[in-house]
């Protein structure tokens, strides 16, 4: 059984993504953002007071926007694999606006669920089983 290609279809709104593919995609997404932040910060270092400069903000903003959208869509893909609607991914909004401790705990819990709950076997109403794809 194959796993869904982890580096493909990050912005798809229709596919199902299995656990392994989701974990690899999440790690790769984090790595992309870390590299982007590091490189941009190298060229546009923060001011002495610790605030970022406008060139940093303007250069990093497209990456940050794409990252947020991508995070939602990857979560939605995983939820569809579990047989749930992808719209449940909007639960990240209250999680994101919660205070620090609640936000941390809820994020961790959500990621544990997304990384551990197996997908439905065989075809579900959101498409074919990603583990059965060639």
């Amino acid at each position, binding site marked *: *059984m*194959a*796993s869904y*290609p*982890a*580096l*493909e279809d*990050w*912005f798809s709104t229709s596919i199902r993504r299995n656990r*392994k593919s989701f974990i*690899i995609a999440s790690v*790769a997404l984090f790595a*992309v953002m870390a590299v*982007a932040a590091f*490189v941009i910060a*190298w*060229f546009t270092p923060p001011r002495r007071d610790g605030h970022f400069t406008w060139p940093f903000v303007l*250069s990093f903003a*497209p*990456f940050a926007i*794409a990252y947020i959208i*991508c995070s939602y869509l990857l979560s939605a893909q995983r939820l569809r694999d579990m047989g749930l609607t992808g719209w449940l991914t909007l639960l990240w909004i209250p999680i994101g606006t919660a205070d620090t401790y609640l936000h941390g705990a809820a994020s961790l819990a959500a990621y544990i669920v997304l990384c551990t709950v197996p997908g439905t076997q065989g075809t579900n109403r959101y498409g074919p089983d990603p583990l059965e794809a060639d």
Partner: protein
Amino acid sequence: MQVFLTIAYIVVGFVQLFAIMDGLGYGLNIGRFFAAILALFITYIPLVGSIAGIYGAVNVWDWSLLQAAVLFFWYVPVFIVVLLFTGAESLFSRR
């Protein structure tokens, strides 16, 4: 992944455009307007655009050669990393 590479391409291209513009103005002693028009053509020519960008960044912006080379030849290390990642992924994609 391709979306992020496209964003990087556009952002670096934008910086490169201004570096080439300043480099042309400095090297050929032409006005900003003509430098901008020439830069628009040169920026997205592979290799030529990168080298012209490095010239402008080093000579006009006083960047170090390493810093300029890393930025304008960003696609070389990125594609090596992507190749390595894709290879590692295909290695572990089968159970």
